[in-house]
């Protein structure tokens, strides 16, 4: 009686009108409190997306609260002030030396933040997500993330950006590979060279077709993401994710979304957003005969939202 979607399918059941109302209430409360409500609004928004995303007819759940995110928000601001502090003091005192040191501290500090943000954000978000009462989790090591970021970051710098494709894939292999859902885990087997060629082809064809191939490039990126992802169960069985998205599908999705947002002066944002969610989730198929009922709870709670908020403040999205 509860199966609103076919077995082993993802679906997005949120209605745009409802999202519109949720965003409106968030905006109202954030405005009235002069922005202070932001962390709570964020928690409510995320919660709405999770609640309306279903797998196998069962919704996901976001456990994060505004209180957690507010604490994280304060800590993140403190950390940023620390990093910006030298620079600000230097400017106020009109000390050139201090300004130079401040800029260096800022630059190095922000770079060093990136692995921290990825790590902390993944830990927080995954721990605060559940499906059928079983929590997700992230068991990666911060040290290892720093190793990848420093090594590949340096190589990317030396190769004038070319190695960036490898950096992305190495990060994805590592982070997704350490994501857990109770007693099960995930695996991503990307290849830097293949990803680089995909991007090179996408870039060149997009230029030659005056941007039209951009939608097919987008499809290739999406396919590369989904098709290399699998869900490993402890009994050796696995579920392989498979993309069914087409370039034409991306074309109509994006074109109509732009039209909606432009012609409603932004008010139709929620409608565009829901169309995207539906498109993405409906074009991910799950193949395999693993038993979704046999997963056991294993992951601990992690309630520190600082890294997640820091990523928010610096506008670094952690959607690997």
């Amino acid at each position: 009686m509860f199966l609103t979607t076919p077995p082993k399918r993802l679906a997005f059941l949120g209605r745009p009108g409802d999202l519109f109302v949720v965003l409106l209430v968030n905006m109202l409360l954030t405005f009235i409190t002069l922005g202070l409500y932001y962390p709570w609004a964020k928690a409510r928004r995320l919660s709405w997306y999770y609640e309306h995303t279903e797998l196998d007819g069962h919704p996901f759940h976001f456990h994060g609260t505004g209180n957690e995110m507010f604490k994280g928000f304060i800590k993140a601001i403190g950390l940023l002030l620390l990093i910006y502090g030298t620079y600000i003091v230097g400017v106020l005192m009109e000390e050139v030396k201090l300004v130079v040191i401040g800029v260096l501290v800022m630059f190095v500090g922000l770079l060093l933040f990136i692995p921290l943000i990825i790590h902390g954000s993944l830990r927080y978000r995954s721990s605060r997500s559940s499906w059928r009462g079983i929590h997700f989790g992230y068991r990666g090591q911060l040290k290892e993330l720093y190793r990848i970021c420093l090594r590949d970051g340096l190589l990317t710098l030396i190769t004038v950006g070319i190695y960036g494709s490898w950096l992305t894939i190495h990060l994805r292999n590592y982070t997704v590979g350490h994501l857990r859902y109770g007693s099960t885990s995930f695996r991503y087997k990307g290849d830097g060279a293949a990803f680089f060629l995909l991007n090179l082809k996408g870039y060149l064809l997009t230029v030659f077709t005056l941007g039209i191939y951009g939608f097919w490039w987008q499809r290739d990126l999406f396919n590369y993401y989904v098709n290399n992802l699998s869900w490993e169960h402890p009994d050796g069985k696995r579920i392989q994710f498979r993309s069914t998205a087409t370039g034409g599908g991306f074309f109509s999705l994006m074109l109509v979304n732009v039209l909606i947002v432009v012609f409603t002066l932004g008010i139709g944002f929620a409608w565009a957003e829901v169309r995207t969610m539906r498109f993405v989730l409906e074009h991910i198929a799950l193949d395999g005969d693993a038993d979704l009922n046999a997963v056991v709870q294993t992951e601990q709670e992690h309630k520190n939202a600082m890294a997640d908020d820091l990523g928010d403040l610096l506008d670094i999205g952690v959607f690997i």
Partner: protein
Amino acid sequence: MERTVQAIYYDGATSKPQEATVRVREMNTLEVELPDGGCFQWPLEHKGMEWERSSAMLRLSFGDHPRRVLLIRDEPFIQSFVLRMRYAGRQGVYDRALAVARSGPVLFFLGVVALLICSYLWFLPWAAERLALLVPRTLDERIGEAAFDQMALGLPIDSARTVSLQAFGDAMELSPSFEPTYHVVKDDQVNAFALPGGHIVVFTGILDRMASADELAALLAHEATHVEERHSTRMLARSMAGYLFLSLLIGDVNAVVAMVADNANALRNLGYGRGLETEADRIGQEQLLKNGVDPMAMVGLLELLEREAEDMPEALAFLSSHPLTQERIAAARTRARELGTPQAPNDRLEVLFRPLIAAQPTEAMPSSAN
């Protein structure tokens, strides 16, 4: 809530969902029965019990991590449950606001838009004005100083009469918090203006039309009140608030900086509006009485301005509330009667007034006006 509904139960140990039967036993307890025959109580008034309602689902959870969860999708049950929780005071502000919004999305949207417009038009300027009054008075002086320095180059100062006017002003005590600095400017406009912090500029156009020392005293008292009561700072804050709001909405901080610079220059043309002009008249009259001048002089000044304004419609900055001048005159007359006449008239003012009219320079006086 006297019902039995089907629910989905997650026990928090495994991912296996169970189809549970939920019964309302007492007011504060649900009874959950599982397919394997297991049965347990689910307290509603317990600190560890949390509930969330999304658009089509009710989610109850209980206990420490990992929590046990019940999902219910029976709409009538959900509605009576939410009502019950509301009466028990367990529905937060957010959920209430959301419930209201969901019951009438279009109306709610229009409400939010109306709220934004209202706060832009009224609340923000009001709040900015209150905030400006908390700022130390030294800021007024800095703004006024900067604005005066910028416009001083373009103003043909009559230095001889400026000295006389300063002497005239110094003979009175008009602004306890500031030390007014007076300037006479060669200009035929029937006008005068005050900058925040104490610069008061009087045009020869108005000075030459004055019949008595009392009228000049009234003019200075009026302008000094603008300074003392920080009218410019308040108006500046008001006009900046709306701009600030718009700039923040479109995220353009540079525009804010440019606007502050613009406003410093626009200070002289700032209209105070009817309320503040009347306040300047009223408090100015009280100052006149304290300084030994008949408060009725304010009536004389306003009548002079009204007469001249008819001839010179372009010189209305001082009279930004021009059509209401009759009202202002009437109010000033009533106030003057209430205040009465000074016990010891200030005789020095008449003496100090003489050099101001005696030294009339002719070159700045176009013949047409008088």
